């Protein structure tokens, strides 16, 4: 478990953050039925550690109902990006917290329905009034029951009431893309009720979370902030010796390394299993190891207890080159930014070298004892996402296919031949319930081939797609090696009958360099032509990362017009002959 500073550290540190400015900015509101002092300051500091500038608003004590129901409240004036709402179990159950058995079982059921409905009405009013995400904490189940050990023999008893409220809230909000349930009950389980809840603090000032655990709570809540801000790490780069297995394969040999069912080999098997579970939900894995390639690849392919095999890795840098050069090559191959990478290496010298030379990479501070690796990995919030799409689940397979493409690219004499052999198919799709989550996700995550880097949440995309003045589309890219999934997005604003404006044009790094962008642009030009539009206007808004798209507009025939670029629809557009474009 990550060591945490004392709360006073965060409170004082937050006071000195005013002079720091970062590109990423976020506004976070906290509402609660009890005292939440210290939480906002801790989140501010944790945001600054992630290079996010955070402004906070803390609602008045136990005024969450009024703040949410009054459309003109200070909460809405603050205009948050994310709002955390904590209602404690005493506030929710009122007298029934102490006297649940003063009413009948039927009445308890009725109460559960009423309280759930009240909370859901609040969340509805909230999402009708603001674009902010809402993170609603669920209810922990106090261990004390007046029925004691008979509690579990009681139909619809005290604990069951709370389970039922939690499960009803979760079910009702399951498909919401703006309201999330934070598992506070699980947080209490993780740290223990006796630790998290301190009676003296509660009596002293209605502080329902022990001050020592406010920083831990903040770390948990940061998962939402990281995911919302698009700061999620996409790739884990791993060392091999003493990281994926115990010992050094070059010295201990295939049979001498520690990897198996007995300790300490089981430590590494478990670590690999957790890594595989992350890979299966879309985290890319790669290897950066100083080793003899043949020794290491034999373990990876043939060791009976190896969980991760060659097919799970998007890149394998097993050589004697320095790890920083290897890391740069991995980032190039996978086509992701250094700040999307987390690096695991047991050797403090390698970690220091990486931290100094590539500070954007998150170098994980692994402890000396490998039995703690699993805990470190499981407690990282840097891989948090607000949504897992079909594309995410397929990513591992897609990167294996990508390796095969690279092999083909190396075997043909030039790019043109390579692209022709790929047999590329670009299918343009409309924004609909299936594609909207992915479209939003791509606008939030894509940094490199992104003309304007405008970020849109799912609700924004939904609204734009319902607006007849906008075209919101995405593109699925397939080739002979497989399906890359939805990997491009464009949003066009129909400014007037003669002119369209490209609001967003982006391509996932996964399909860059294959003329897909030209194929998509040709589709936009044709559609404009069919609608008798004369001009397409676009802007390139430079960022630190979108250099790859810098020359795209002039290369496609756009002419500079003050601070934007204009394409005359009547000029001929050359569609690349290496791909076919179709539309729904």
């Amino acid at each position, binding site marked *: 478990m990550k060591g945490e500073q004392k709360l006073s550290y965060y409170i004082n540190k937050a006071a000195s953050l005013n002079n720091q400015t970062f590109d990423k900015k976020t506004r976070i509101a906290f509402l609660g039925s009890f005292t939440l002092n210290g939480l906002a300051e801790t989140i501010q500091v944790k945001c600054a550690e992630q290079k996010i500038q955070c402004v906070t608003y803390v609602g008045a004590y136990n005024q969450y109902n009024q703040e949410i129901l009054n459309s003109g409240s200070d909460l809405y004036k603050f205009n948050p990006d994310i709002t955390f709402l904590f209602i404690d179990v005493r506030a929710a159950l009122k007298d029934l917290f102490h006297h649940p058995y003063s009413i009948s079982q039927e009445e308890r059921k009725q109460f559960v329905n009423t309280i759930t409905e009240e909370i859901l009405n609040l969340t509805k009013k909230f999402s009708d009034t603001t674009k902010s995400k809402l993170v609603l904490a669920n209810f922990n189940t106090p261990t004390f029951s007046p029925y004691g050990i008979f509690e579990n023999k009681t139909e619809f008893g005290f604990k069951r009431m709370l389970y039922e409220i939690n499960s009803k809230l979760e079910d009702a909000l399951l498909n919401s893309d703006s309201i999330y349930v934070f598992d506070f009950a699980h947080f209490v389980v993780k740290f223990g009720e006796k630790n998290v809840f301190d009676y003296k603090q509660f009596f*002293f*000032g209605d502080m329902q979370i022990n001050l020592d655990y406010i920083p831990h709570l903040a770390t948990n809540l940061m998962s939402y902030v990281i995911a919302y801000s698009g700061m999620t790490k996409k790739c884990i780069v791993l060392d091999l010796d003493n990281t994926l297995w115990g010992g050094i394969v070059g010295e201990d040999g295939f049979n001498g390394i520690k990897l198996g069912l007995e300790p300490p080999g089981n430590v590494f098997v478990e670590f690999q299993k957790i890594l595989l579970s992350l890979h299966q939900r879309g985290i890319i894995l790669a290897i950066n190891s100083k080793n003899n390639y043949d020794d290491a690849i034999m373990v990876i392919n043939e060791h009976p207890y190896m969980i991760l095999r060659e097919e799970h890795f998007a890149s394998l840098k097993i050589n004697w080159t320095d790890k920083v050069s290897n890391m740069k090559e991995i980032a190039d191959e996978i086509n992701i930014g250094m700040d999307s990478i987390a690096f695991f290496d047991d050797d403090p010298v390698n970690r220091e070298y990486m931290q100094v030379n590539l500070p954007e990479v998150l170098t994980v501070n692994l402890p000396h004892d490998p039995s703690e690796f699993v805990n470190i990995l499981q407690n990282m919030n840097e891989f948090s996402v607000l949504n897992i799409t079909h594309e995410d689940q397929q990513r591992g397979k897609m990167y294996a296919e990508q390796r095969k493409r690279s092999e083909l690219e190396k075997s043909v004499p030039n790019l043109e031949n390579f692209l022709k052999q790929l047999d590329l198919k670009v299918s343009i799709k409309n924004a609909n319930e299936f594609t909207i989550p992915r479209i939003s996700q791509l606008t939030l995550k894509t940094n490199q081939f992104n003309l304007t880097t405008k970020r849109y949440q799912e609700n924004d995309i939904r609204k734009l797609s319902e607006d007849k003045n906008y075209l919101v589309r995405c593109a699925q890219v397939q080739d002979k090696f497989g399906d890359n999934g939805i990997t491009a997005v464009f949003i066009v604003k129909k400014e007037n009958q003669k002119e369209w404006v490209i609001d967003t044009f982006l391509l996932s790094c996964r399909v860059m360099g294959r003329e897909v962008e030209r194929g998509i642009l040709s589709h936009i030009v044709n559609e404009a032509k069919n609608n008798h539009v004369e001009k397409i206007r676009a802007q390139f808004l430079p960022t630190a990362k979108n250099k790859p798209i810098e020359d795209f507009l002039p290369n496609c025939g756009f002419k500079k017009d003050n601070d934007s670029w204009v394409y005359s629809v009547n000029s001929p557009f050359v569609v690349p002959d290496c791909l076919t474009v179709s539309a729904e």
Partner: protein
Amino acid sequence: MSKKLYELIARVMNVPADSIDDNSGPESIESWTSFKGYVLLYELESEFKVKFTIDEAIDVKKIADIKRHLENHGVIL
């Protein structure tokens, strides 16, 4: 021990250690809010391995009160 106490209070209240004395408290230290006052007691408990009673927690009006309660718990200042 007294020095350690002053340093801890100064750190929690974010003021220079030499600006406080036994008579300092919420009235003379601007940052000493009721919440900060509780944070202070909490850190004192952890630093000096004591547990204040709720009466003691409520009773603190100045640093001299903290010293008195710590001494009652056997801490030699």
